């Protein structure tokens, strides 16, 4: 029964070694997708290169379909999967602030790590900004943190919220991905002229 870490008692070293290997794979895939480049990442917001949405959406649907398939044949126990607690206000406000930071900074935290490894000075400065932001949050916003945690609910998913089975949601997301792929092709042609000449 999966996940492995729930059915087998992994030694800390084994767990961290598997984690490290997973991290290497994460870094390779992000870099090969072009996500070590701030210009490529922010291009999604100007429409001439929608790679960020293409990659993220496909990844989400792939993992979602895989989890659903494995759960429905009883290979994985979804109760053992960690799900980030839900606080709608926090996730709405946090998302708005984060989106601004993404565009202004040119990276998100994970892609900044890849860009740092690829030698980008602006990514190192962005990473320093992340540390400064966390220090600021810890100093001045620990009351906010306590409110967010105290008002977060565990395991709020679309199936648990609506009673509509996960399989229907997977089908909906596959359909939305196909629709988005079609729309993004049109957007890229319409906004191609925005691509800066370097």
């Amino acid at each position, binding site marked *: 029964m999966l996940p492995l870490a729930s059915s087998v008692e992994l030694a800390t070293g084994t767990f961290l070694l598997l984690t490290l290997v997973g991290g290497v794979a994460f870094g390779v895939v992000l870099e090969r997708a072009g996500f070590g480049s701030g210009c490529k990442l922010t291009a999604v917001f100007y429409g001439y290169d929608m790679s960020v949405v293409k990659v993220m959406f496909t990844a989400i649907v792939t993992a979602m379909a895989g989890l659903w398939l494995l759960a429905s044949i009883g290979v994985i126990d979804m109760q053992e999967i960690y799900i980030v607690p839900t606080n709608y206000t926090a996730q709405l406000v946090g998302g708005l602030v984060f989106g601004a930071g993404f565009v*202004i900074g*040119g990276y998100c935290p994970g892609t900044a790590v890849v860009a740092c490894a690829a030698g980008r000075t602006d990514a190192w400065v962005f990473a320093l900004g992340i540390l400064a932001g966390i220090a600021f949050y810890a100093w001045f916003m620990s009351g906010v943190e306590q409110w967010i945690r105290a008002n977060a609910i565990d395991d709020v998913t679309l199936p648990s919220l609506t009673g509509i089975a996960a399989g229907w949601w997977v089908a909906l997301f596959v359909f939305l991905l196909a629709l988005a792929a079609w729309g993004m092709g049109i957007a890229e042609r319409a906004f191609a002229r925005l691509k800066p000449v370097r």
Partner: protein
Amino acid sequence: MATSIADRRVVHPVERPAQPYWNPYLAGFALGLVLLGGYLLLGRGLGATGAFSALAAWVASLVSPESAAANPVHARYLDHGPPLLDYVPILVLGTLIGGGVSAWLAGRMRLGVESGPGVSRGARLALAFAGGILAAIGAKIALGCTSGQALSGAAVLNAGSLVFMGAVFASGYLVAFLFRKEWL
């Protein structure tokens, strides 16, 4: 002063132009398999901000162990062994290694600053720093970033993660219009 990344190439073992990126849908499929692998083996999705949080908590604990342990933001990373020998920090260490090796092999290792053609190096670095601060505060408030919330959460149909992702893109498109001179 335009800063072109292309003329700041690092000496590379094989002199050749950068390889093309993977097809985005194939790259997304591969990323989905990495995420799925994380869930199947370790029961957890991907993350990135947690590594910075652990690093910040560790530094704070070196400066003042008492005040770091008393801070509710830092304490979460200090109450179960060495903060940097944990899931997300080790994952991000791997990401750094994998990203570096991949960039090197693809001929994409470049020392330099990335920005649109009309932005000075100093302005771009100041904006990168400001963006890092905002991204960190946003991720702390939302309990996750693009990796931990958008990617890992949406794959398990987490309602809050989908709200987060909608908010990121709504704000991203608005701010991108306001800051179009930085990138276009």
